[in-house]
């Protein structure tokens, strides 16, 4: 197993390099540069030239990319070109934990609510419970965060005033750099954004669990388990459930990577200081090192999540073995 993990990590290095290179090439193909405007004013050409020399933007592109990789090897993601005096490392250290907390809680909500919902619907297939659960799931998938967020802000946050409609209540510093203190203030602030982000995932995971369980329950080994006289509960929990979770785990992996790197809409609407806004602002402002930084974090998380997913397979289905 350990050898498998090491090999997978080694294989992922060229993939990461290729991915960052594509994004690097794409972002440098966009006309304009980070020093086009300061506020609404444009800088004199000589100043721009000096700034570009300082940040090595006047060098050949490949050399710049090599320089970036070299710095990366020293765990340095470079300076932000728009937020003077801030390094990309600082941005990640300050903002990423917040996105991580929001995303992890949303995925956790989806797993805790969605999987039981799916199991219930599958076991009572074609009953009113099933129809209700499926209907709710479809609606849950269809209501976008773009609509749910302002709706919750207005009803729960403004009209009823039950929960804060904005900001993030976690106190710094975080344990280990990313785990917040479980204060009441933290949870009160977290409920609305987590529900906004988690509703769609809950519905998606519920539907997937139901579909997978329905398929597994028709397999021969389930019939065998029933034939040897096991109780229905044991058949479902011990034999069917684990296998049916494989497609669910498959989507949770990439989902986790996408969510914990920040979702722009939710963070923007709830004024949460996470990573999400950099995906948009860094690109519109041509803040090259920040664009590379957010891409890299996303890609690394995706590789890690996929590796975890594959390792979970082996645990869920003993027929899967890695050498």
């Amino acid at each position, binding site marked *: 197993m350990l050898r498998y993990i090491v090999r997978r990590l080694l294989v992922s290095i060229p*993939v990461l390099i*290729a*991915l960052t290179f*594509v*994004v690097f090439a*794409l*972002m440098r*193909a*966009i*006309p*304009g540069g980070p020093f086009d405007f300061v506020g609404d004013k444009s800088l004199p050409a000589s100043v721009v030239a000096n700034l570009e020399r300082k940040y090595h933007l006047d060098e050949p592109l490949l050399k710049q990319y090599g320089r970036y990789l070299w710095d990366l090897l020293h765990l340095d993601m470079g300076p932000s070109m728009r937020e003077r005096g801030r390094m990309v490392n600082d941005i990640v250290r300050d903002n990423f934990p917040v996105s991580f907390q929001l995303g992890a809680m949303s995925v956790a909500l989806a797993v805790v609510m969605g999987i039981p919902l799916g199991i219930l619907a599958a076991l009572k*297939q*074609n009953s009113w419970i*099933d129809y209700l659960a*499926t209907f709710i799931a*479809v*609606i849950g*998938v*269809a*209501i*976008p965060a*773009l*609509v749910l*967020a*302002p*709706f919750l*802000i*207005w009803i729960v946050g*403004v009209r009823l005033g039950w929960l804060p409609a904005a900001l993030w209540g976690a106190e710094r510093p975080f344990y280990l750099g990313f785990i917040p203190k479980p204060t009441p203030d933290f949870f009160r602030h977290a409920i609305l954004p987590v529900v906004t982000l988690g509703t769609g995932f809950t519905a998606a995971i519920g*539907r997937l669990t*139901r*579909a997978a369980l*329905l*398929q597994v329950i028709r397999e021969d080994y389930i019939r065998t388990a029933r034939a040897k006289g096991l109780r229905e509960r044991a058949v479902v929990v011990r034999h069917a459930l684990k296998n049916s979770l494989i497609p669910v785990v498959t989507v949770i992996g990439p989902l986790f990577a*996408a969510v914990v790197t920040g979702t*722009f*809409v939710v963070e923007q*609407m709830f004024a949460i200081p996470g990573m999400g806004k950099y*995906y*948009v602002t860094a*690109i*519109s402002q041509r803040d090259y090192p920040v*664009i590379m930084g*957010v*891409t890299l974090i*996303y*890609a690394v998380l*995706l590789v890690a999540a996929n590796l975890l997913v594959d390792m979970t397979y082996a645990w869920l289905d003993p027929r899967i073995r890695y050498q």
Partner: protein
Amino acid sequence: MAVAERAVAALPVRRERSPWGDAFYQLTRNRVAVVSGILIIVLVLLALLADVISPYTYYETRVIDNYMRPGSKYLLGADTLGRDILSRTIYGIRVSLSVAVMAATVSLIIGIIYGLTSGYFGGRVDEVMMRLVDFLYGLPVIIVVILLQVYFKALGRRAAATGLSALLIKADLAMGGLLFIFIAIGALNWIGMARIARGQTLSYKEKDFVMAARAVGVGPIGIIFRHLLPNILGPCVVQETLQIPGYILLEAFLSFIGLGVNPPTPSWGIMIQEGYQAIRSYPHVLLGPALALTLTVLAFNFLGDGLRDAFDPVMRGT
């Protein structure tokens, strides 16, 4: 006449149906899917007749009426510039539906051609083409789409372009910024379709009727278009329908972050963005676009599910 014969004659006649006809029959029995289909037809009609139905234009501003609440003058109220929200919501259907249709068509065509080629020729060709797909699959879609949109917007601002790019920029301007949205959304979304088309091709190309066609001397082009394509088209179209809500939401997201259609073209994403900024004082601004976006996405979801159930009765209701 014998009793038995009379009994048989009294039975309802079941006409034979083609697979497509059977799928359509199954679809009409799914009430939610039928309602969704009707809703989508109504949306299409509203979009086509927007000029006739809308009480106002989508761009006309009457600053004196800004943020006017819903009433007899404006059914859904007016926005920050005093534009009628109902009219803008109706015109917004055009943007959402055209993105749905165009993104789905582009992704379907590219994906099917790619997947068919890869699956049919197999071997080295398949290996190379699928490695490329695997690699593209790893690209963060949102980042690439945003990069492309920023690129197109920057191009549009530089009027110095010549030749093809100038033509594209002009066409895009005439379409209110929609053309580049089609390209940006279509650029990566064919990947999933390519995989599905390849899988379907692989399962069909070993069948006897393909062998028979090859035996009588049909060439690769003939086999691909006459024998394989009609068979894989159904499942591919169904899968594509399931992607449409995603395209609609992606366009709304792009417009929300200011990288979508050019103002004053009304997109529900822009309208939601304007609405949420005034949410504490004027929540009515959000109502029209939010309702329209949710209903449209819901309808396409239900229709896609119904289509899949109709074509794949084994997994019905999953």
